[in-house]
């Protein structure tokens, strides 16, 4: 009941309107607004009025323009950076070390036997093509290697290049294709290339190399991939270098450490790698002081004599410093240390902290990147390398139906090998060359918001020195093999010193250049400066607009009613509405209480009060407008009474 009454009241109030006409409203607004300027428009003579109107308009547009500039600046999400540099106790970086050779040749020889024999034959053919040892190759089963054979392209006659298959089983074929004097065929004349055939050998392309060394290495790596991808990983781990053999001595600060402090991780292309201070299970070790005495000292034995001859042509240790709990992409980001030297690595930790969306595009943990992270099984943090590799593997599976041996496999897929996927090699090489595919990956993968890089200053000195060589090798041999003879040599030992530099960190942090406080301050400053306005002025303006709309709607309704009435009049052509009806129409708008309500209003009130006494007709609004100067005074006193 009450609600209904209240609603009815509201309806009446709404029907009644704000109680002004347009002009009255405008005048009232100009007179009472707090924005400077409008007051002047109504106060003075017509010329000044025009001038003030223009000035107000000009300043209003100035304010609008300035606001636009500020809001645009704010929405450009600029960042400011702060840089700090110095020394502080920090977690020592995780150190990953790998032997340059993935496997010990003595253990993988049986797997690579066929390939090596073939390789030797091929090398012999390249070196002396005309006297091809047919008897050596003929005995071999070549069918397995025929998917991507090596060929020799004789380009001495540029118009008729002669293609010579190095694996051709019958030597006569090669002999017939290469008549005449073979003689010295230099690198410009004869090129070794890889023939890539797909679709059962129907479409073939050649991949050229400028040097036979490169061609042979590439080809061997491709074939070895083929072999190792068929061996389960558990066995591959056995074939590589064990931590016990690799790590001879380890000292962190003053604390002893041993190969047991290293976590093993298997890389397809580097074999067994070992991570120190990975922080996966135990807390990361801090280092409190710069200098070698507080860093990590390692002595490693790379066992160079047991390298796989065609697979590892570099001798040394590959190492990489990375963040705790991040996956070491040692092939992409590692550095090499030479044997027979002491490599000192001074570390500077370079940290970049991005602000994230919307300031700079980056991802906090990779969950918003549309690439499935295949390195998730290692329980490592997101990095852009992991994303790029996962992306490549996904593409590889999409286009070649098998995964590349170097990258982890998604569930339910298998690695490529020539037996099951004969076309994989051309497919892989095409994909690797493809610019567009790489672009898609780079576009999809976002950088991570907290980026840590380790800047290294690397220096080398010979180790051990001639004077100390003898006892050092003796002690190391005794420790490893309990032999009184020296079992190590200068070619095999590597010493690493990894320590913090005098300045060990440099942090670049992004922060928002323009925050919301800045924006509001500037908006307010501009509005206040040009027009003396505030937010409340805006709301005043909005109020006036609402009143305007309100009046307009009421007028429209009245107009519509009037129109209908006129139509009704026209249709019936009956008697015109009586005075009572008209009065009723007026009373419906509730004019009666309106007078009472409107009267306390700032201007209307005294006039309303004054005017009824003489009993004059309703006021002309022009007269109202001319009065405000007096009104203000009388108004305040009227209130005071």
């Amino acid at each position, binding site marked *: 009941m009450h609600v209904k009454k209240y609603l009815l009241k509201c309806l009446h109030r709404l029907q009644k309107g704000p109680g002004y006409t347009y002009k009255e409203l405008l005048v009232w607004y100009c007179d009472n607004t*707090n924005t400077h300027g409008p007051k002047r428009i109504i106060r003075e003579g017509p010329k000044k009025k025009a001038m003030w109107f223009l000035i107000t308009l000009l300043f209003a547009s100035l304010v609008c323009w300035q606001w636009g500039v500020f809001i645009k600046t704010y929405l450009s999400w600029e960042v*400011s950076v702060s840089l700090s*540099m110095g*020394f502080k106790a920090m977690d020592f970086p995780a150190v990953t070390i790998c032997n340059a050779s993935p496997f010990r040749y003595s253990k993988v020889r049986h797997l690579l036997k066929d390939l090596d024999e073939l390789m030797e034959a091929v090398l012999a053919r390249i070196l002396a093509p005309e006297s091809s040892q047919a008897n050596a190759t003929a005995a071999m089963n070549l069918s397995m290697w025929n998917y991507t054979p090596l060929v020799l392209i004789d380009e001495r006659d540029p118009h008729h290049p002669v293609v010579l298959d190095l694996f051709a089983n019958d030597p006569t074929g090669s002999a017939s294709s290469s008549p005449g004097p073979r003689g010295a065929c230099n690198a410009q004349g004869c090129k070794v290339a890889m023939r890539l055939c797909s679709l059962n050998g129907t479409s073939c392309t050649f991949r050229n190399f400028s040097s036979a060394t490169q061609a042979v290495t590439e080809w061997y790596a491709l074939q070895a991939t083929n072999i190792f991808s068929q061996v389960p990983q558990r066995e591959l781990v056995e074939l590589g270098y064990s931590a016990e053999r690799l790590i*001879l*001595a380890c000292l*962190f600060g003053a*604390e*002893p450490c041993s*190969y*047991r*402090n290293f976590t093993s991780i298997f890389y397809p292309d580097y074999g067994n790698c070992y991570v120190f201070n990975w922080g996966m299970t*135990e807390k990361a070790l*801090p280092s*409190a*002081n*710069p*200098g070698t*005495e507080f860093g990590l*000292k390692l002595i490693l034995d790379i066992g160079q004599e047991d390298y796989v001859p065609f697979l590892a042509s570099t001798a040394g240790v590959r190492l990489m410093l990375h963040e705790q709990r991040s996956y070491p992409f040692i092939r992409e980001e590692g550095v090499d240390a030479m044997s027979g030297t002491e490599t*000192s690595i001074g570390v500077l930790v370079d940290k970049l902290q991005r602000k994230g969306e919307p300031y700079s595009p980056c991802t906090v943990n990779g969950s918003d990147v549309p690439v499935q992270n295949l390195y998730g099984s290692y329980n490592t943090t997101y990095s852009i390398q992991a994303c790029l590799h996962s992306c490549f593997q996904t593409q590889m599976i999409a286009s070649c139906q098998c995964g590349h041996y170097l990258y982890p496999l998604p569930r339910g897929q298998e690695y490529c090998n020539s037996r099951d996927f004969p076309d994989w090699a051309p497919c892989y090489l095409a994909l690797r060359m493809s610019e567009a595919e790489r672009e898609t990956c780079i576009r999809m993968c976002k950088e991570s918001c907290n980026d840590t890089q380790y800047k290294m*200053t690397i*220096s*080398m*000195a*010979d*180790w051990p*020195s*001639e*004077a*100390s060589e*003898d006892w050092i090798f003796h*002690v190391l041999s005794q*420790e490893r093999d309990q032999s*009184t003879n020296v079992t190590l040599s200068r070619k095999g030992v590597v010493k690493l010193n990894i*320590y913090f530099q*005098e300045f060990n960190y440099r942090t670049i942090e992004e922060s928002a250049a323009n925050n919301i*406080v*800045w924006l*509001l*301050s500037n*908006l307010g*400053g501009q509005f*206040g400066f040009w027009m*003396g*306005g505030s937010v*409340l002025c805006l*709301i*005043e303006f909005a109020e006036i607009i609402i009143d305007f709309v309100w009046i307009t709607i009421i007028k429209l309704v009245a107009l519509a009613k009037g129109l209908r009435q006129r139509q009704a009049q026209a249709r019936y052509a009956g008697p015109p509405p009586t005075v009572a009806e008209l009065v009723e129409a007026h009373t419906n708008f509730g004019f009666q209480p309106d007078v009472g*309500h409107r009267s*306390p*209003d700032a201007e209307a009130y005294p006039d309303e*009060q004054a005017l009824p006494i003489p009993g004059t007709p309703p006021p002309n609004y022009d007269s109202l407008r001319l009065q405000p100067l007096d009104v203000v*005074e*009388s108004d*305040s*006193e*009227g*209130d005071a*009474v």
Partner: protein
Amino acid sequence: MKGDKREEQGPGPETVAPQQPTEDEEALIEFHRSYRELFQFFCNNTTIHGAIRLVCSKHNRMKTAFWAVLWLCTFGMMYWQFGLLFGEYFSYPVNLNINLNSDKLVFPAVTVCTLNPYRYPEITEQLKELDSITQQTLLDLFKYNASTLEAQPRHRRDVHPPLPHPLQRLRVPPPRLEARRARSSASSVRDNSPEVGRKDWMIGFQLCNQNRSDCFYQRYSSGVDAVREWYRFHYINILSRLSDTSLSREQLGNFIFTCRFNQAFCGDGNYSHFHHPMYGNCYTFNDKNNSSLWMSSMPGINNGLSLTLRTEQNDFIPLLSTVTGARVMVHGQDEPAFMDDGGFNLRPGVETSISMRKESLDRLGGDYGDCTQNGSDVPVKNLYRSKYTQQVCIHSCFQENMVKECGCAYIFYPLPEGVEYCDYRKHNSWGYCYYKLQDAFSSDRLGCFTKCRKPCSVTNYELSAGYSRWPSVTSQDWVFQMLSLQNNYTVSNKRNGVAKLNIYFKELNYKANSESPSVTMVTLLSNLGSQWSLWFGSSVLSVVEMAELLFDLSVITFLMLLRRFRSRYWSPGRGAGGAREVASSPVSALPSRFCPHPTSPSVPQPGPTLPPSLTAPPPAYATLGPCLSQSGSACAPGEP
């Protein structure tokens, strides 16, 4: 506005002060009415936007409430923003300015060390005893018969008393003593899976405190580390017994064959020499003692320092200097050279080209960041006669603690006054004390890292190096010929006997990072003003207006209370006064508590009662107040 001011001023000093003692009733009536009036007056005349709407929209309750809520909201918003602004100001943010300057640069000081403390023949006398015991240890533990080390007759070992802290082979886990357990729990290097095997032997030596009640083993997993560290430990003791002058200082010509800077010869005037107990003879070029500092006005390899160094290793101390080459460090002119922290090794037989790039960072200090200008406000005495750097402070701090805890000074750091270097003949437990202290230092239990603050201005040289074989096969003959002729140096081992070093600026423009405060007092005030203007369109004067309002309110309240007190106790007989008081108090007291906003709905109620008051016989208080206080225009509208 003018009239209002007059009215405002009128009641304050005139009515309150002179009239109160005589005609307090009138004065009170004047003020009693002003509670509402005051707000109305304030709202009408203040420069704070929005306030006027509260008054002029009072015929429309909806609007009044709306404006009241709005006013409160913007008020809240403003103070929230104020809070943010103040918070920002008091966090003292800084802006980073990066300048890429290109200028003539002062060439930094370059220190080159031999990596071998003493020539072996010179120091054999002192090391004889230690060497023979080390040989015996190597034979015992590793079955290594040192033939290359200077063979000592076996019987001489028995002559000497055995050295303290013998090297032992330890089983893992060793019989742990209490101290060792505490130590290992503090240390975080732990074996992942301790198991039994031949690898589980560790090498170490025992260290005990003064009365041998507490011992622990300093252990090493590898014999190479163990022997070297153990040898080094004893070597420190021997060294502390040596006086500085007992060994002849090496000549520059014996280590540095050629020296050129900017294509010009450099010689004795350009370097200073010091002896480092581990890195040997060190020569600092272009330090502050240099006659005139070297300037680099061109980048490139021809405009830097170029040295040819002797790296002959025959006379190295075999058990101490296991590394061959030289160590070089680039540092500022008045900074000490910490070869350990920032050194760079050179390989024999190789030309090492080190290119530098300068970068400097100037912090503001003070409130803007934790740094010290010159180290005078750091509670650590600088033991080095050099500029304050963080490392200088940390080393001094360690030495200070060492002297305090162990009673002697560590030989690698400078000697404080009145203290001598550690030697187990004098301080028999210093090893125990030192290793304990170092452990505490590494885990920052000594507080050195918190005590030593960063210096405000830091200059850093970024180094990158390139290597190439030197001398080349075709040129080595004449190079060695020249060396042997000029320096009397015959290279026995061909290439390995010499090394070449080039240090130069990669580019002369250097990055200068400096800080400037990003929010100053001016910006803060400007922002405050802007915010105030944004939300209320007001200024400092508006604040004064608000203060005035508060002052007026308190004065009125005080007068009200005073009057009530008087009417109740002082003149209870005056019925008229009491009645008037009763009539007036509900109107005045209530709004005064909740004014202006929550009571604004109640304002219109007395509002309509006012118009009748104009025509009806006026109540005494309504007309009396203005007429008494203010003659003239104030009463004028009421009377006609």
